[in-house]
């Protein structure tokens, strides 16, 4: 019998929302406890700051330029390599419960497997893997899906429709009637993507994901090894947690984020020192991507709206922490506690008011790039608690799962096993993480390439319909932790910049083949 792997992801969660990372709004005792017993990563960086590319990187252990999911809406090929399949082949039982998003959700033709599965009423379907062998979809024997919405084709929406149809309309409509990200406001402040949701907590997707996970685990044999990806849709907007829970955080008393300048002139001066897409979006002049409501103008965000959004986000984080606690209890009840590895992370962050912005987009700063990451190795593995300060990537997850399962990482995996402490990082980790942004939206193209290394974050804006290729960003993390001062054009740092850009270009390697087409906005 080997180690069991519970891989927990949330969606769009900021680093600073966890107590173990210094967060003071949400209470997250379960994750904090795992961090205390395990390894907490101070700088975990995604390969992309949007869902589909980032999740594809987790599953494949590859960068977006290699797995090809270069923006949301580009499906990960069914025959892409899958770390879950690697584990399954060495005997692991495998499941993914919650939000998948390797394929577009908006799919009226029902072309994509994620959308087909719930309709078919089967736990998985067989398909051809990257090596020509047939296996369950992406290596998962059991798939049960939820997303942020009570509508759609996935299991959670169908379960609600069948069992609790009366609560469906209580959820926020994530898309408006034009199928764009909804800008409608709610709550006390009219903040976008906020709604009071009368759904009972038990029927909310966070608890549903935990329940379905527990059900799957309960059906396993006691001596099964297993890999379970439990994927919570929250705290991604909409911010419509069960209204019974809103009292957990008094929004009027929530402090404004450090990254938010209440002084408008100061806020705008900071934006103006960054590449033009920052200010253009803030002013409502540019909608470059599908990840935020296109008709919402960030400059209209009020301090109170930000407080209310922050509070609701924290409520959602607490619910996740508690749901995770229930799952861990269930696992313990099965007698697996000593063999259990838990990894908790997210796919990318949330602007969360930094620079006056919400949601996400082509903004490679800590708001979106500094992620919560905790690895609590199985107690019986004897790994000591640690904090790792050096940068690691989500690309490192797949080799980590392999290491836990005792199999060699596959040759197509680009990362390395997560370091177990700082010394291990220095020894084995390349010390740089690359983050890529590419988007196309009706002819508007934006591309960013970012390297995180040695306490610097350096971003090159690729030529496109917004940038001419000359712009970029350079931040020194230790003396500018909020990335308020763009030092790209600082002559004193020219050699630092040149060195980082050269390393970035080197690391990107040759681009092969054309881009696969976008199939849907999300």
């Amino acid at each position, binding site marked *: 019998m080997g180690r069991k792997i519970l891989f927990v992801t949330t969606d769009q969660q900021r680093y600073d929302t966890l107590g173990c990372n210094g967060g003071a709004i949400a209470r997250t005792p379960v994750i904090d406890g795992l961090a205390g017993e395990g390894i907490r990563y101070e700088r975990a960086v995604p390969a992309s700051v949007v869902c589909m590319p980032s999740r594809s990187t987790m599953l494949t252990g590859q960068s977006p330029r290699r797995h090809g999911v270069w923006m949301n809406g580009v499906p990960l090929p069914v025959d892409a390599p899958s770390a879950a399949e690697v584990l399954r082949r060495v005997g692991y039982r495998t499941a993914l419960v919650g939000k998948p998003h390797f394929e577009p959700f908006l*799919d*009226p*033709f029902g072309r994509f497997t994620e959308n*087909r599965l719930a309709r078919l009423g089967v736990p998985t379907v067989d398909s051809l893997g990257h090596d020509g062998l047939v296996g369950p979809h992406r290596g998962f024997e059991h798939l049960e899906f939820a997303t942020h919405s009570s509508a759609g084709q996935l299991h959670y929406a169908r379960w609600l429709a069948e069992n609790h149809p009366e609560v469906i309309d209580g959820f926020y409509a994530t*898309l408006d009637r*034009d*199928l*764009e990200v909804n800008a409608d406001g709610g709550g006390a402040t009219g903040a976008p993507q906020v709604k009071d949701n009368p759904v009972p907590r038990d029927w909310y997707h966070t608890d549903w994901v935990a329940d379905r996970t527990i059900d799957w685990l309960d059906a396993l044999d006691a001596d099964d090894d297993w890999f379970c990806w439990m994927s919570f849709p929250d705290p991604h907007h909409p911010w419509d947690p069960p209204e019974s829970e809103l009292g957990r955080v008094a929004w009027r008393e929530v402090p404004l984020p450090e990254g938010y300048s209440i002084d408008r002139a100061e806020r705008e001066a900071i934006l103006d020192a960054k590449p033009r897409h920052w200010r253009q979006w803030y002013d409502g002049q540019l909608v470059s991507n599908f990840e935020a409501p296109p008709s919402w103008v960030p400059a209209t965000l009020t301090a109170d709206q930000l407080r209310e959004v922050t509070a609701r986000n924290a409520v959602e984080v607490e619910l996740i922490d508690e749901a995770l606690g229930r799952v861990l209890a269930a696992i313990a009840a099965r007698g697996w506690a000593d063999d259990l590895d838990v990894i908790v992370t997210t796919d990318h962050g949330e602007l969360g008011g930094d620079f006056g912005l919400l949601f996400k987009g082509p903004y490679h700063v800590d708001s979106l790039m500094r992620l919560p990451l905790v690895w609590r190795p199985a107690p019986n593995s004897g790994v000591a608690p640690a904090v790792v300060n050096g940068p690691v990537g989500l690309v490192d997850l797949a080799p980590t799962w392999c290491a836990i399962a005792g199999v060699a990482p596959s040759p197509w995996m680009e990362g390395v096993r997560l370091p177990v402490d700082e010394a291990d990082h220095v020894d084995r980790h390349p010390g740089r993480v690359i983050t890529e942004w590419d988007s196309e939206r*009706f002819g508007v193209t934006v591309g960013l390439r970012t390297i995180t290394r040695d306490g610097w974050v350096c971003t090159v804006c690729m030529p496109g319909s917004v940038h001419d290729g000359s712009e970029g960003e350079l931040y020194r993390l230790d003396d500018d932790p909020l990335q308020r001062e763009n030092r790209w054009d600082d002559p004193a740092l020219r050699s630092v910049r040149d060195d980082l850009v050269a390393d970035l270009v080197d690391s990107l390697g040759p681009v092969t083949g054309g881009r696969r087409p976008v199939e849907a*906005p999300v």
Partner: protein
Amino acid sequence: MTTRASVRRERRIGRPVEVVWEVIGRPDLLHLWYPGIEACEVRGDVRTITLATGMTLEERILTLDPVQRRFQYRVTGGLFQEHLATVDALDLGDHTTLAVYSTDAAPATMALVLGGGAGAALDELARQLEAATGPAVDAVRAGPHPSSAPHANHAEREATS
């Protein structure tokens, strides 16, 4: 304000344009090469398609022009504020064909989603034509639909006022 968008997909197919048009020019066969369309019924210039999700769409055939090798239809019934689909078979003069499938739509998002479907459809069309076998190619070989004999030109008549 609802935005519109236009999304074009194209594939070069290694078959002569007449052969490609034989499939594209058969509106009743779309479900045999468009992934996610499960059924397709044509009555006069109205086509009803059934999607794999169970949704049905009613379309009006606007253009079925064997000279230009252009097929157009419009989804009717209020789902769209604007819709126009255009499928072209363009002769490249070397026994290959450029098949182009365009979607103009408002809301813009639907143009993107339908464009994705069109791209997958062109892939499947190319696959069947280049293999010279597959459901659509076989159906064409089986002969014309009874209603697609030499006919009067009702197709381009559409009340716009």
